[in-house]
């Protein structure tokens, strides 16, 4: 008895020391050997302890792979825990010991047949996690059985296993038909199995963007909706995300799905709630606005969104980022919920900033008083970043809600009185914006602002203050003194302040010329002689020249009336917003970027669009419209999406887009080209602008065009705004330097480079009847990918000149200027014959037609496909890349008619291997009509022969680089299918030439 008690006592002590932390302490030498001995012990308990130690070492990142054979030996056991532990180990180390891992296969296969479904599931699950090719082969048979297992637990585990296997070896999964089996599981009787099948398919579909894996039709949708009610919370997320990809046929179907999804809004799991919100936000678009249900749904959306904000801060953050989108799309949902966005002092900073942003979006006349009181409160918080944002927010409120402007200004003045340095500086920056929005209204506060001049030490605040002094110089008695005081330390100021100071003093001079002569001379000499900053120097010279030649003009330029700044400058572009709404709850929605822009491995992701909304009466047509929009939105298949192109250009390891494996020489050429386009190419893009004539200055007025010629223009010239860009808020930048709306009519003398003349000449030629075939314009660069710049384009050959015709549309919120274009090396040396002529800045929602003449004297590099052209377009915002394909008929020269004899001889001379034959289907032209049509595109018929009712046309084509293509076109009366045989010394071009034949004949 005593002995027993002692033993129990010992065990108890042992038990209390039994925690796993002891595994962390074994750091002494020879540890591995010790473990090895224990693993091979006869005692079960000792073995298990040893495996536990191994696992513990593994979790903290120690390398215990040397014990592989010993651990695997423990696998054949009846003890479930030991088995699981060994499985854990296997999953971790099988990859590094593939040959050893094979030893485990038999046990796995045996376990897959075990009568206990838990063991079967565990085996198939673990096998899928072992990422060794040799093992995956053995996995197929057991997996197939498990997918059809009688036990749903095994089936649902097997469904996930298919996704695992796909990750390791996609081809194997397809070959074995597992995808079809997986699709069948969507109709399984058990909701968990359905949910896992959907999850697995969604994951597989992500790496196969174009596969139609989740083929959604009303039947499958119905099954998913049924499973939705019964599966686990995680399953609900997968099913809801899958539902969001469906486009209902009509508003009734849309409504019924919404009705069945709405209960999910009351789920305790916030991810379920947000996924449900996504489905509802998307399908709501299809509901007619006058439907009662529409209003009900709107009301139902608010409470769950509010509830998300009482969750943990991390959840709040994601919720807030999404609410930010929802508020922009449908402000009515949360317009009464302003207060839930009020900031608590112990919210994490990332939550505070998001709340602040949403508060401003929701600010309206009705609630502005509350909002301002809150913002003022925040301006006294501890966190400097947050305080600054709060002060900025007051300025944004003033600009957004006109009625509140006065209140905002007085709030800002109160804050300036606090004399807290960063608050004052921030306040001055926003007051400058308020002046821009409401000129001549609040200038009375300038005196107060001037009191704080000395405390300003941040460039942005100094620049803002200087702008204010310059702009209102006539009302500030001592403006000259103030500006002079800044001038003392001119060279220590940042560029922003220097530029601003220069402009302000010139303004002052123009307003009060008599007293400030000396000052202006001082600043001009500081800027032009003592500064090595090219921007500053140029601006100085321009002012100098302006003032000395034509003070009236100078006044018109410098003191020109500025356009008002716009209300909201930070709204997401509507197209992007629509896409993001379809991605609510995803990473894309957190970053407010389209998924294609940043998610790795999601190349060619389909852009999602909201379905078209239906009026009450036209419900039947709307889905068509929606899907049509979807189709036209997708980029043309032959052109790699921008992401791909960039990838190709940037990543030298990437193989070229074609899968046919081009010769290595071509690959390296491609890389060279890529480097060129990005490196030297950009420089020369910039360099282009330094060639004087074609770049019009933004602030040109009728008197000024002669200026650029005379002003020195250093090679690294970059255009700046004469009017004095503060560079502060985007609103300022956008509106400030905006030039006169139309270019003066007399604007022609200086711009006399060949390009423009050509352009005018060619303008006449457009209507000429003999124009070669030119394909309709296609979207080359969608607005989404180019920060709002959309480019539609095509190629044409007019009067012997190859032209690239483009429509540039500005879909962004700000003005675009400084366009330039450059091509990568290409197969036929196409290169712009002149600079891109976009003379007026492109304002938002404006389009412009541009024709760019091309020649073929540029560097040559073989592209794949042959007629591929990679283009870089630059504007003031960024540089964008796209690629397009030109019809090769652009390159057919007008003197391509061969002599008969020469034709015959050449035809014989070219080896028969070089002959390729193509079929042109469904062409109903007679041989003569065809011949005429082809002639228009410089495909010349040399001879015609008729044999057995079949017309044979012999034709010749000459390309710009001197390559001849000979053709035989066979036309049989009554047969719409033509046969064309092409012979050429460079047979690579045949395919392209054939495409041109087809295009010309069918249009």
């Amino acid at each position, binding site marked *: 008895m005593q002995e027993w008690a002692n033993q129990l006592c010992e065990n108890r002590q042992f038990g209390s020391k039994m925690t*796993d932390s002891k595994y962390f302490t074994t750091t002494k030498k020879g540890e591995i050997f010790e473990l090895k001995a224990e693993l091979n012990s006869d005692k079960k308990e000792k073995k298990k302890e040893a495996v536990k130690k191994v696992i513990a070492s593994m979790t903290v990142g120690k390398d215990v792979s040397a014990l592989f054979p010993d651990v695997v030996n423990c696998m054949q056991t009846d003890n479930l825990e030991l088995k699981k532990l060994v499985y854990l180990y296997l999953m*971790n180390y099988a990859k590094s010991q593939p040959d050893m891992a094979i030893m485990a296969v038999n046990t796995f296969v045996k376990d897959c047949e075990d009568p206990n479904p838990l063991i079967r599931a565990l085996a198939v699950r673990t096998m899928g996690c072992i990422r060794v090719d040799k093992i995956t082969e053995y996995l197929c048979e057991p997996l197939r059985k498990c997918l059809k297992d009688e036990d749903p637990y095994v089936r649902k585990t097997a469904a996930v296993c298919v996704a695992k296997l796909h990750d390791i070896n996609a081809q194997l999964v397809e070959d074995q038909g597992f995808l079809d089996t997986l699709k069948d599981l969507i109709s399984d009787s058990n909701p968990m199995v359905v949910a896992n099948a959907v999850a697995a398919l969604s994951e597989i579909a992500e790496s196969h963007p174009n596969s139609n894996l989740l083929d959604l039709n009303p039947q499958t949708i119905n099954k998913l909706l049924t499973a939705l009610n019964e599966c686990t919370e995680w399953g609900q997320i997968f099913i809801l995300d899958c539902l969001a990809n469906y486009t209902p046929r009509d508003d009734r179907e849309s409504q019924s799905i919404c009705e069945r999804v709405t209960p999910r809004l009351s789920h305790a799991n*916030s*991810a379920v709630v947000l996924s449900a919100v996504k489905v509802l936000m998307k399908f709501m678009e299809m509901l007619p606005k006058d439907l009662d249900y529409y209003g009900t749904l709107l009301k139902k959306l608010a409470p769950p969104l509010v509830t998300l904000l009482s969750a943990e801060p991390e959840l709040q953050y994601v919720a807030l980022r999404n609410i930010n989108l929802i508020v922009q799309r449908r402000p009515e949902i949360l317009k009464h919920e302003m207060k*839930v966005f009020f900031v*608590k*002092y112990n919210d994490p*900073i990332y939550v505070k900033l998001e709340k602040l942003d949403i508060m401003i979006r929701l600010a309206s006349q009705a609630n502005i008083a509350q909002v301002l009181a809150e913002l003022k409160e925040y301006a006294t918080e501890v966190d400097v970043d947050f305080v600054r944002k709060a002060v900025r927010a007051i300025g944004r409120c003033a600009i957004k809600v006109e009625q509140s402007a006065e209140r905002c200004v007085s709030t800002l003045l109160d804050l300036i009185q606090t004399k807290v340095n960063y608050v004052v500086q921030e306040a001055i920056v926003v007051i400058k914006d308020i002046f821009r929005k409401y000129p001549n209204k609040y200038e009375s506060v300038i005196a107060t602002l001037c009191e704080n001049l000395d405390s300003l030490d941040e460039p942005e605040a100094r620049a803002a203050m200087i702008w204010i002094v310059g702009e209102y110089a006539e009302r500030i008695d001592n403006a000259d003194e103030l500006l002079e005081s800044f001038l003392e330390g001119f060279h220590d100021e940042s560029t922003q302040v220097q530029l601003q100071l220069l402009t302000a003093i010139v303004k002052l001079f123009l307003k009060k010329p008599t007293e400030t002569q000396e000052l202006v001379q001082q600043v001009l000499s500081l800027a032009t002689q003592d500064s090595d900053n090219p921007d500053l120097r140029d601006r100085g010279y321009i002012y100098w020249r302006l003032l000395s030649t034509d003070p009236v003009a100078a006044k018109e330029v410098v003191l020109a009336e500025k356009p008002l700044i716009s209300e909201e400058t930070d709204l997401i572009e509507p197209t992007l917003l629509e896409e993001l709404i379809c991605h609510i709850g995803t990473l894309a929605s957190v970053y407010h970027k389209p998924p294609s822009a*940043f998610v790795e491995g999601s190349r060619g992701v389909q852009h999602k669009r909201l379905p078209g909304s239906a009026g009450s009466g036209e419900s039947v047509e709307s889905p068509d419209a929606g899907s049509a929009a979807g189709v036209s939105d997708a980029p043309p298949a032959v052109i790699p999406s921008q992401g791909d192109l960039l990838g190709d250009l940037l990543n030298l390891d990437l193989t070229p887009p074609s899968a046919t494996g081009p010769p290595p020489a071509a690959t390296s050429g491609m890389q060279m080209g890529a480097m060129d386009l990005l490196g030297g190419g950009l420089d020369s893009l910039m360099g282009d602008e330094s060639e004087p004539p074609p770049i019009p200055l933004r602030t040109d007025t009728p008197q000024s065009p002669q200026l650029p010629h005379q002003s020195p223009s250093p090679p690294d010239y970059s255009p700046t705004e004469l009017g004095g860009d503060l560079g502060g808020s985007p609103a300022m930048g956008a509106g400030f330097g905006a030039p006169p709306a139309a270019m003066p009519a007399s604007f022609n003398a200086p711009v006399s480079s060949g390009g423009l003349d050509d352009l005018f000449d060619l303008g006449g030629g457009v209507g000429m009847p003999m124009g070669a075939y030119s394909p309709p314009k296609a979207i080359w660069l969608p607005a989404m990918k180019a920060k709002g710049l959309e480019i539609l384009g095509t190629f044409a050959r007019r009067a012997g000149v190859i032209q690239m015709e483009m429509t540039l549309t500005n879909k962004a919120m700000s003005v675009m200027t400084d366009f330039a274009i450059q091509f990568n090396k290409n197969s036929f040396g196409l290169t712009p014959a002149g600079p891109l002529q976009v003379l007026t800045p492109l304002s938002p929602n404006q389009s412009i037609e541009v024709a760019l003449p091309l020649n073929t004297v540029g560097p040559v590099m073989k592209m794949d496909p042959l007629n591929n052209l990679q283009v870089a377009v630059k504007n003031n915002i960024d540089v964008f890349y796209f690629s397009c394909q030109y019809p090769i008929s652009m390159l057919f020269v007008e003197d391509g008619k061969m002599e008969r004899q020469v034709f015959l001889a050449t035809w014989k001379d070219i080896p028969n291997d070089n002959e390729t034959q193509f079929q042109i289907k469904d062409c109903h032209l007679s041989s003569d009509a065809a011949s005429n049509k082809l002639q228009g595109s410089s495909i010349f018929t040399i001879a015609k022969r008729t044999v057995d009712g079949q017309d044979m046309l012999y034709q010749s084509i000459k390309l710009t680089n001197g390559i001849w293509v000979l053709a035989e076109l066979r036309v049989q009366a009554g047969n719409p299918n033509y046969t064309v045989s092409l012979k050429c010394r460079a047979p690579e071009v045949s395919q392209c030439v054939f495409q041109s034949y087809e295009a010309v004949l069918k249009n």
Partner: protein
Amino acid sequence: MIHSLFLINHSGDIFLEKHWKSVISRSVCDYFFEAKEKAVDPENVPPVLQTPHHYLITVYRGKLFFLSVIQTEVPPLFVIEFLHRVADTFQDYFGECSEGVIKDNVVTVYELLEEMLDNGFPLATESNVLKEMIRPPTILRSVVNTLTGGSNVGDMLPTGQLSNIPWRRAGVKYTNNEAYFDVIEEIDAILDKSGTTVFAEIQGAIEACVRLSGMPDLTLSFMNPRLLDDVSFHPCVRFKRWESERVLSFIPPDGNFTLMTYHVSSQNLVAIPVYVKQNISFFETGSCGRLEITIGPKQTMGKTVEGLMVTIHMPKAVLSVNLTATQGNYTYDLATKVLVWDIGKLNPQKLPNLRGSLSMPSGVPKPEENPSLNIDLKIQQLAISGVKVSRLDMYGEKYKPFKGVKYVTKAGKFQVRT
């Protein structure tokens, strides 16, 4: 899906890693450390971080970072919810969620993680199901295990995972059948200087502890269900019944769970149980300041306010405080600059008051920010929104259970601005 999980302690050591797909080097966490460095406070580390090849989604619980690595587009809320669930499970299994406890139970932790996620897909996250497969460690069990060579892992198929009620295990048996419901309401409020309510709302939850044999089917009804218009339910609640009859009908999980949470929004009038009169001022000169706080009852519905506590984050410049409290004790932590006044029960006859001076080093300018007061309180037997349970019925089983409902109101994020 979720690729990997790293557990990182306060000082930035990775002490556990788990990979559900291929192994990702722990160097990926360097991006997180960089962000952590920048954020200064651990609470302020952004929860979603982008790195060149991965996304890092983090939650901060119990001074630990749960950092997950994902590679493809995954709903971040799903990841965050899951990470919190992991932390909840640790809490449930080991009584707390801390580095020490996780290290003590690392093998169980590893088994749990393996069971909770398969290839990044959640597998079993219901505590009932998990406990059937992996028994929580207890001292007694480890003693028994050492004696008998038994193990912590159940060899039963988790029955709940397959039925339509995955949250309940089959064959539950109790000698005492009991069901307790706690209606817990938290007041989130912001009061301004003058005591006016800027914002107030009630977060309510019904926490249940149900120990009933067999498959009981319960119905809980309220006196005034119309108060509850914004609700989130445990998956067991039949939503249709709620929509049509405003009763909670459900087959409960076994043990402790949150039956529902609700939210009485700021539009409704939320009763504020106490008022706070405060004055914290700093003098322009003389490097000191004054503080005076008085708390009194406001709308307490005739109940006693207990557990009253005031927490103030003082400006950094405040070196020390010299105060007198008419009731309770105060402490001032010099390192964190947190002043805590623990009052206890609120006596309406003799209002608690704290007053005295704050001292700052001389020559330091007057602090720019105004400290906020955080109030903690508790009122037993009161749901401040007025929600009341009227009855609980049980169907499907023959025995008579013991039933009980308790109400309590607490302060949630209750802040008074100065």
